[in-house]
């Protein structure tokens, strides 16, 4: 196994979070190059040419997103989504805690490209250390003239503000993030209008994930052809995968897209713990359907994973071994969504609550065969009927787990106990 390092290349350098160390390791060279050699439009074209796709989960082409900004003279904003709260995903956290200047450099390049004069980092509420790191790094960047007026004598000016959320998963959804950033309750907004047209304070706004923006410095250094030399035609480049669960070496691994899932688990993450077998893998964070051990040869790119019935999502790869109860997994993950539903729309608010209760009851041996139909019907009443994607996200694991492991669910309601002997935290809610 050879691990390529671009986004994570300097993670091991001591004190890389200090600007002088970052500079000594080619830091801010890409920015100099971008400001000197590129017109903003050329940068947008380069990002388009690279085929870079958003790393927050949806995988929307970044260059295209940037080109949606209307050219109407209104102020524009760049907002970096660092509200990384998807269970199983912890790549952005490592980026901002260990190497915050990479993000800042990427943000300056992106702002220059998109014409933003003000940029925000919306940091997850729980990322206290990460937000402190960012604030400190932003202050350093101001001191060195990378931020503020007339950056590096280019005539380009930019201010970056770091905002820490209050701890709500829904604020990772871009429109809820913008509401929260404006000081309002973090509920998703009606779309259209999309943020590119009416985003922060009603102005044209680009919202990008941390990892997406961190791609900019290496991209400017090495060019789009280099980027396209990795991955596939539609999913080029690099992706950081966060591997967690029953593996020997959980952690973040930077891979060229289309690396097989098996290689990620076995070569990068050191294989399943204790010599046990893979039972299921959640490849893209807790919101996507599970894959089974028969699908381990699927290449990790957006299209292949989709064809295999799941999604690459945020790259949070949760490995589940053969001694794990899938009902317990489903109940635990649904409980997360129940707690994180913002409460705005009915199916998500009430549906995740009810379904969690039923699954917890099943896991505790108090289910009935009727409950299985009930869960399927409830899922049908939630799917595609919610205001934002959170409701559908909540269903990803439970619906796929019932599809792939029906016997396990049935055993719970016929034998009135968990055949795996799993114990749930606190069984029932109340």
């Amino acid at each position, binding site marked *: 196994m050879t691990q390529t390092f671009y986004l994570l290349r300097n993670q091991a350098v001591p004190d890389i979070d200090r600007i002088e160390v970052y500079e000594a390791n080619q830091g801010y060279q890409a920015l100099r190059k971008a400001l000197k050699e590129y017109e903003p439009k050329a940068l947008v074209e380069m990002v388009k040419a690279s085929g870079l796709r958003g790393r927050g989960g949806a995988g929307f082409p970044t260059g295209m997103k940037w080109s949606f900004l209307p050219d109407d003279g209104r102020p524009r904003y760049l907002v970096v989504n660092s509200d990384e709260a998807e269970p199983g995903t912890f790549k952005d956290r490592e980026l901002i805690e260990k190497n915050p200047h990479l993000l800042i450099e990427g943000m300056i390049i992106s702002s220059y490209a998109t014409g933003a004069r003000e940029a925000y980092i919306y940091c997850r509420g729980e990322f206290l250390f990460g937000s402190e790191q960012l604030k400190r790094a932003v202050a350093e960047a101001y001191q060195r003239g990378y931020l503020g007026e007339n950056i590096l004598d280019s005539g380009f000016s930019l201010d970056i503000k770091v905002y820490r959320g209050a701890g*709500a998963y*829904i604020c990772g959804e871009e429109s809820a993030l913008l509401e929260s950033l404006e000081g309002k*309750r973090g*509920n998703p907004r*009606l779309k259209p209008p999309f943020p590119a047209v009416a985003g922060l304070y009603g102005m044209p706004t680009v919202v990008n994930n941390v990892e997406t923006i961190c791609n900019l410095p290496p991209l400017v250094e090495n060019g789009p052809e280099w980027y396209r030399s990795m991955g596939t035609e539609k999913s080029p480049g690099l992706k950081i995968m966060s591997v967690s669960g029953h593996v020997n070496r959980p952690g973040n691994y930077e891979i060229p897209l289309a690396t097989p899932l098996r290689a990620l688990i076995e070569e990068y993450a050191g294989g399943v713990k204790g010599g046990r077998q893979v039972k299921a893998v959640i490849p893209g964070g807790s919101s996507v359907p599970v894959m089974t051990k028969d699908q381990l040869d699927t290449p990790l790119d957006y299209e292949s994973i989709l064809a295999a019935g799941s999604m690459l999502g945020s790259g949070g790869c949760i490995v589940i071994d053969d001694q794990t109860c899938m009902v317990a997994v489903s109940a635990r993950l649904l409980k997360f969504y*129940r*707690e*994180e*539903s*913002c*409460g*705005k*729309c*009915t*199916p998500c*608010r*009430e*549906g*995740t*609550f*009810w379904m969690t*209760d*039923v699954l917890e*009851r099943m896991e505790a041996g108090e289910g009935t065969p009727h409950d299985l139909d*009930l869960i399927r*019907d*409830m899922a*049908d*009443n*939630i799917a*595609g*009927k*919610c*205001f934002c994607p959170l409701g559908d996200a909540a269903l990803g694991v439970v619906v796929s787990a019932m599809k792939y492991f029906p016997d396990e669910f049935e055993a719970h309601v016929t034998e009135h106990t968990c055949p795996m002997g799993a114990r749930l935290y606190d069984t029932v*809610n*109340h």
Partner: protein
Amino acid sequence: MIRLTIDDREITVPEGTMVVDAAQELGIDVPIYCYHQALGPLGACRICLVQVEKMPKLVTACTTAVQEGMVVHTRGSAVDKGRQGVLEFLLINHPLDCPVCDKGGECFLQDYTFQYGSAAGRYDEPKIHKLKDAAINEFIIIDQERCVLCQRCVRFMGEYVGEEQLLLEGRGVETVVSTVSHQPMDSQFSGNVIDLCPVGALLSIPYRYKARPWNLERAESVCPHCPVACTTSVTSREGHVIRVEGRPIPGHDWGWLCDRGRFGYDFGYVEDRLLNAWLDGEITSAAESTRTIGSWLNDTLEQHGGDSVAFLVGGQQTMEEAYQIRRFADEVVGTSKVAVSRSVKGYLPLGLNGTFEDLDRADTIVYLGQDPYDAVPVVHLKVRDRYRDNPGLKVIGIGAYDLTRSTVPGDAFVLEPGEEAAFLAYTLAKVAASNPIIARLGEELGDFSPTFKGAKSEQEVETLGRQLLESEHLVLLWDGKDPHMESVLLALRGLREDVTAVLPTFGPANWRGFERAGIAVDYDRLEAFVEEAIQGKIHLLFSIGADLLRDYPDRERAKAALAAIDRVVSVGLFFPEQRELYHAVIPGAGWSEVDGTYTNMEGRMQVAKATVQPPGQSRPVRTYLGSWAHALKKSFVLEPEWDPFDHNAGDLIAKDALPEVQSVPKPARPAMKDGALRLVGTALVMEGGMPSEILQPRIPKYPGRISLADASRLGIGEPGGELGLRGQQGMISVMVAVDERIPQGVLVLPYGVVGSPLNQLGDGAVVEAVSLEEVSLR
């Protein structure tokens, strides 16, 4: 225009229309909770799911704008299943306590469950428990368990009214509607959330456990409390009015009410309501009082002739009653002395009168002397509505204090009290001095120049002048205090090419209706009556729904007038002030007890149905008029009923020709001693009207308002204090509090505050603060 098909029927609607509204136009009912046309789409409740061909999923009809060629199905198995699912979700944590819920029978959760829901529930888990029966202010309780979190209430207060008093608290299934900082809602528009709530979560406290919908009778009515005359629906049970709701008129009015109108319906049942006739301070029978008053009338006519009898009418009667009184005076008594009891001297020619539609189109709105929020609250909401549609709306406050407020930001010109007309004449002369109309207006102004409290440059005055002349749709809200303003308004109308509309914010509420019924409402008429009374030329007065002492600008003079009349008869719902001045007081019937028509500040006639019988011995005016005619052995036939509507003009009173512009005199500024205050009257809908026990907690404890500087000087702290005031005509005490909008040297006091009669000292009077002991020794 966009053409689309809904349930196999084609319709063409404007671009931007939501599917739900297009369906509504076809008469197709799509269920909704969170959506409200005034608030715009939200997409929270998901009950309005519909199927649109070529779309992969069901969509919410309230958030989906129509598109050319769209094919929509509002029913079908997928839609029905989706709605059934949403309803099931809404009900899992709902307490299902319909049998004890006031909303039962008129609840959209019940209705839609009946229509689209499943007959049986599948939910076996424990329900979430939340706050029940918690008061969010004096009038409203919340039951968070019944709430469907549609956010209508939260959005209405925060976005529509602009007074952020409700919010969502918590998240997920634990989300609840709560008040900001857990403080009671104190907005005067709070009651609207009861009408907006589609379920039994926000309920009226006064109406609580009073009735089930099948016990009720509902009648269309209009609110009698201020000149807006909002359309209402009056609920009664067993002869009692027990509730008032807003009555939306589609395409014309949202049906908002202020709390004064919504909860002030209990004046019919308060302890002070007159239920018997009184003669010389003693209760007597209806028959005896009728005989006695009949004989007084007979004697007076024999001894002094018709013109020795006068009629003073107030603002509560219907147009039909006003017409009956006028005919009685004309035909039975033979007197021309019919005057309307008024507080302000101004008159607005009908031809200048605008409508609320002008507010919907205005680009410039000017408040003259009065903050509409206080006098005509729902007009403030209409202005706010316009501001939401058109954030470029220019609002200008011109008066003795800052008349603007944060919900509709504007520019304030703060002048010496009573100089609004002169100021405007001066301003117009700055920008159009050569115009003959302006020249005429300014003939007597002399060297007048305004003194501003707070800096205003000459430049700003000129800008104002140009705005007044050049704005595309100008609406002025006038307090009616200064009669010279009439000429300024006429001049503006004469000079401007675009629409100039004036809305009178002054009462009495139905004065336009009286005018239509043939009773002259001008102040001169009232003044002449008072003068003749004092001179002893009036021997018998019928004061019908009027209270001269309360209304007339000079209380001492009003007293002298009443005292000089041989016999004073009052017909009303309550004893008038200083009842010893009246020889007979007989109980009248009022709003909700008589059918009739009221004309509002637009000049729009609106019908209010009677829903209950007058209580006790109280009777409608026509009954008394008939019996007095009988005592004179004269016939007084009221059939057929007079129809106030002119069928060529619709419900608006037809406009007439405009009078000539007169000049505005230079205002005389009274000498001010050090530390003296100018007393400025204002109309406040909570004060001076019909009494209400329900509203008691909302009657301002400190109705008077002064500047912080004066308060500190006079030792008035938080939350307020009592102040003794002495003027030329006497002394009163006033409860006052600080208001930052009031300039130093001004004390603003609403008309009709019980115990603090402004007209004892006079509007605009120079007063000085005295000790309270001095006042009590008076």
